[in-house]
């Protein structure tokens, strides 16, 4: 299993295949502030990428693979919201 789910951090390793998309999505659906660790990741399948983008998930450690890191970070930057969540009074 290339994805390890911890409390609110999912760690993606190696090549993440299309099969990981569904479990990842399900996990993210239950998470308020999910983070993902991509350090040891070398490629993520489009379906997984799409889930990460849709969830606007926070990346704790970018991939070591420079290529992947570059495209991924810029894509995620596009998807992430630039404002802080509304503070509750």
């Amino acid at each position, binding site marked *: 299993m290339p994805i390890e789910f911890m409390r609110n951090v999912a760690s993606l390793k190696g090549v993440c295949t*299309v099969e990981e*998309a*569904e479990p*990842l*999505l399900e996990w*993210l*659906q239950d998470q308020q502030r999910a983070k993902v660790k991509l350090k040891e990741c070398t*490629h*993520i*399948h*489009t*379906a997984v*990428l*799409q*889930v990460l*983008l*849709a*969830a*606007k998930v926070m990346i704790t450690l970018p991939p070591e693979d420079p*290529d*992947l890191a570059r*495209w991924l970070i*810029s*894509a995620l*930057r*596009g*998807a992430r*919201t*630039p*404002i802080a*969540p*509304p*503070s*509750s*009074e």
Partner: protein
Amino acid sequence: MTPLLAQFIAESREQLEMTSAGLLAIESNPNDLDKLNEIFRAVHTIKGSSGLFEIRPVTVLVHAAEDLLDALRSQEVEFDRSMIDLLLDAFDQVNQWLEELERHETLPEGLESRARELGGQLRAFLNHRQVETVNEETLTAPTFTELDWLGQFPEHERAALYSQRVADEGPLTVFRYIPDAQCFFSGEDPFYQVRQIPGLSLLAIVPTEPWPSLAEMDAYHCILRFEGIASAAHGELAELFRYVPEQTALLNISPEALAVPVGRPDETVHAEFVNEGLTLANQEDWAGLRGAVEGLRDNYEPETWMASALRWLQRLLDSATPDLTAVCRLLEAMRTGQSPDWLAALAQPLAQTADAAPASAPASRALALTAEEESAFQRIVAEQARSLTLPTVPESWSGRILSIFTCLSNVLRYVQRADLLEELEETRETVLDTHDIEPLKNLLGHLVDAEDAAADSAQELSDSPGAATEVFKAITPTETTTGSEKQIAKILKIDQHKVDRLMDLIGELVVAKNALPYLAQRAEKIYGVRDMAREIKEQYAVINRIAQDLQGSIMQVRMMPVGQVFQRFPRLVRDLSKKLDKKIQLIIKGEDTEADKNIIETLADPLIHILRNSIDHGIEPPEERLLAGKAEEGAIRVNAYQDNDSVAIEINDDGRGVDATAVKNKAVRRGLLTEEQAEAMTDHEAVQLIFAPGLSTAEQVSDISGRGVGMDVVRNSIDRVGGAVTVNSRRGAGTDIRLTLPLSMAVTHVMAVELDGKLLGIPMDLVVETVRLPPAALFSIKHRETFVLRDQVVPLARLRRLLSMDEPATGEAALATLVVKVQGENIGLVVDNFREGMEVILKPMEGVLGSLRQYAGTALLGDGSVMLVINIKELL
């Protein structure tokens, strides 16, 4: 078998069943678009899931069916009855493969050709459409109508790329790749594909539609678009995307096209500078132009559009031989504040779009985004104003006001209107103090008017596409969350064995519970503690109630609508009537009637048998019907309803009925009856003989029915679950068959009777009443003992005699007689004594005892003893 595969098989079966039913519905009403959509979705699901396993033939065939259904759905092909036949065949084939899959977990080799053959037949209907599809795809294939989208890449990255390309004069190709939404199912990985692009320099991955909420998201539905720039030739990219040309757009560009200025728009008029610049450029006075740019640049904030345009102009001019047309284009763009139309400048064969480009994409990237944000801003403010007008209870009033203010302050902070924030704060205090919402209304109105101001102060737009919608979502999260909660299905799929196990356990609980009254008795009689006995009885009452509830609930779990069995009927009737050239209408009522799953399952085969008989022997061919003065189309009615503690199913046809004489003759020939017996028999009695083994009146054996193994099998299987079947024939007018089945087999009510000091059970549903007869009330008719009960002569049987037991003389004591109803007739049954009625879990006789037909089974009693339950029908 892996659970995944098991689930796939089970689910696909369900889907296929629905599909068959749906197709038949479509056949009679081709315009039922809802049904068609339903079928399409079912087939689509099967296709999608089948991709997870190594079952290529299924995928191939279902895919072909899906294509045809899709074409039907979008009305691209004309509906044709032969399509239904073919689709049904295809699904039958899939069903067969699923069975194969269930048995062996894999499919044998060489099925794919069969799949392709069937698929080919299905696709034959699409042939003329495919031509259109190709055209359509070329139309929907991505094209570039403008190159402004390049502005989404940070300026410095584009600048670096620009200078590099200008220096080495290498090729630049922009690409846009919109993968098919279903591409994951065909094993594609577009992101991987994109990463293989040679010299990939800039890449944006954006959704083709707004991001769905996570709860609604379908992980396997691709909604991504890839676009960017590669430092490679057009041909290299075309080679890479050669399998998906209809999903990609490629264009060679010159480095100048990277010069898309982005930033905050500026109201200042630059006409003077533009004119001066154009003059200088036309004179090729590059140094002069460079100077003019230099002079103007510091007048603008770096993040403005104009500053960005000037920086690009500078970069163009930095080249040793600046491109005159490019410079002029950029200068002209400054006049209008819109991005230069680089696409037109490229004058590629795609140039037809060039004319349209300025019109279709007049707004620059920055402006467009601002508009988006503005609209979000407006929507938020409007929503707040609306919620202000909604009625509310006083307790929640201040909460609502506070939330409106929180929301507004967030919005204002985002658009960086610190000035308004202060005003907002003040208004909040006022409103909360005075309970007057007027100031807030004014403020909201003011905010709506101030849209330009708000737009102007929006910053960093180029870095945040989609930010506007995000704001909206973040501030009104309640809508989406409540929506998604509703969508969570409350249905569990459970292996039947687990429910059965639960059922067994509850059965044991009931037996254990029944031990308590005995315990209470012992406490009282043997140990003499009356109070203790009472308390035990109280506890027993509580446990009894819970156990009954538990039993009731688990029975509910096992209940299924009989409609499950009926689903197969329309198909059966359709196929058989086609084969036999008969016209038959099937009318089904009461599909919702529920019964225990096991009962429903035993029903399936008998019902199909009965139905086949009706179609084959009952309903006459059209000519014969017309001669008999009936409607050409025969009718078969299936009606299910609940009748007290049982389910009744009636199957009526308006065919020729059962020929009583023919049945008698046959029975005599087979030696089932003597001629005299046959003579004495009424027609109604004779008709019942069809349930006797080895009797079929059909003139010839067909492959549908008539092998003489039909109706007796029906009776046996209905008997086995404690049901009954009766037939009533109206000569020439039809046959009615009625099945009655218990709702559930789990718990049996029995009446306990005493015989020779032992307890015996008699099924409660047979018991009519109990009477005590003085011996004087008995009299004999032809060696049979009888008695009169309410002016009716009732035959009497003695259970001891039936069971070959000693019969001690009872003298003048009254005889305990149980009146039971067997095959519609009352019979008195003399026993030693009556005992209480009880609920037992009846276990059938098994093994060596299985052949003892006189007993229906055994039940475990609360005191641990075993009670035999009598099968009166067999005994008499």
